[in-house]
């Protein structure tokens, strides 16, 4: 049993997940709105590309990103890790938002346009407040998924303490050096936090459905 528990991998994980979630939210809002409203023929192509990270092995994604990063000097840095995570977690932000927007009453959006409101005001004041459950789900799942990522992080970030050694990588290394007791504590913390986060989402969404 170690005397003091090193919490930096957790802090790093949450920093990475926080940065990724904020960046993805900014990118995904216009993208998912476009996907939900467009009748263009390129829609299925865009949907397929944004969903790729769900089906691709993380090693494939990591391999491509690593090759690109090697040229621009981003491999094994925290910023590189954030960029890689944005690719990896993109579908988890886009899909709930898109289905939320698609589920909105079209007449309600048209009523807003007829009231003289433009697209942006309609999105901010009408669309987003009415897809709160989808919005919260998208944010939390993206955050949780980034905290839980392993393959891409290991390939792109390596395991540099205080820079790229996040919790999932730290646990992997502890198991490799057979420090099972620390691995147990780290893993239990991950299970506990993940459970609480998901529980929070489901309780919130359950309450919201009653009102909307």
């Amino acid at each position, binding site marked *: 049993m170690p005397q003091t528990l090193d919490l930096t991998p957790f802090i790093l994980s949450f920093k990475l997940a926080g940065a990724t979630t904020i960046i993805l939210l900014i990118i995904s809002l216009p993208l998912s709105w476009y996907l939900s409203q467009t009748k263009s023929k390129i829609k299925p192509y865009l949907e397929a590309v944004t969903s790729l990270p769900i089906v691709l092995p993380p090693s494939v994604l990591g391999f491509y990103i690593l090759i690109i990063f090697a040229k621009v000097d981003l491999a094994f840095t925290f910023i590189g890790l954030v960029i890689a995570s944005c690719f990896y977690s993109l579908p988890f932000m886009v899909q709930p938002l898109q289905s939320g927007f698609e589920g909105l009453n079209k007449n*309600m959006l048209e*009523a807003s346009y007829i*009231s*003289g409101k433009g697209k942006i005001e309609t999105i901010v004041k*009408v669309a987003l407040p009415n897809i709160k459950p989808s919005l919260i789900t998208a944010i939390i799942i993206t955050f949780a998924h980034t905290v839980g990522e392993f393959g891409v992080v290991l390939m792109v970030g390596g395991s540099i303490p205080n820079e790229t050694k996040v919790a999932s990588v730290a646990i992997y290394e502890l198991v490799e050096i057979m420090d099972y007791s620390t691995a147990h504590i780290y893993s239990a913390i991950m299970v506990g936090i993940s459970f609480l986060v998901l529980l929070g989402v489901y309780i919130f969404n359950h309450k919201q459905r009653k009102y*909307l």
Partner: protein
Amino acid sequence: MIKVDINKTLHGASGEMDLTINLQIKEGDFIALAGQSGSGKTTLLRILAGLEEAKGTIQIGNDIWLDNKKSLAPQKRKIGFIFQDYALFPNMSVEENLLFVKKDKQLVKRLLEITELSQLAKRLPNSLSGGQKQRVSLCRAMMNRPKLLLMDEPLSALDPAMRTKLQNEILLLHKEFGTTTIMVSHDPSEIYRLASRVVVLELGQIVNDGTPKEVLLQTSGSQKFSFEGELLEIIQIDVIFVAIVAIGQQLVEVVISEYEAKNLKVGESVRVSTKAFAPTISQ
């Protein structure tokens, strides 16, 4: 004067259809748009609102909303539009729904008073009944003080008592705000009560256009009393034939001759009329 001369090819359930409308509407008129579903009524409203594209011209007084050069965005047309499903903003209270259109608290107060909704100003739409929701939607549509008010079957989801109440409020607001109103409706009594002119569409064309009296009173010749209905069954009792006809929500029995019984087919649309006696109306 409102001049509409538009054309659009629709891809409906029964194949391609040309919607060709040429209409001149006096300002302040109350027009009822009637016709079977799929005849293009809703599409016409949506084209007037700028929610759908079409070829041709739309001119409101001196303003041009649509010609071959431009199509004015729905945001700039300053119309009121009432949807059958109310389309209120669920995240905003009754009052906020109205203020969203225009920050005019005086007007909100007045509209809510006219429609007897003042007590519900702070409530969220989902806690209201259908009739209350549609009244909120009506108030919201008036917030722009629209020159043109468009209604797509606004009352078809409501019960008869609530319909009558709302019909009166619609008429009141139509007069008070001096709007030109176009309403899609299937209900002859509603059309008769509200509209000054009825335009009937069939397969994208105007097939009838006149006052409610001219269009709706379906008596011909010396008939004084006439109903359209569906023939449900012909029953033979000894030598007498009885036809069961559905007229609206009512079923009626009509005695017919053997000759008539042979020529009528069950499922046909029939007309029940009489001129030989004076029908009585009682409560």
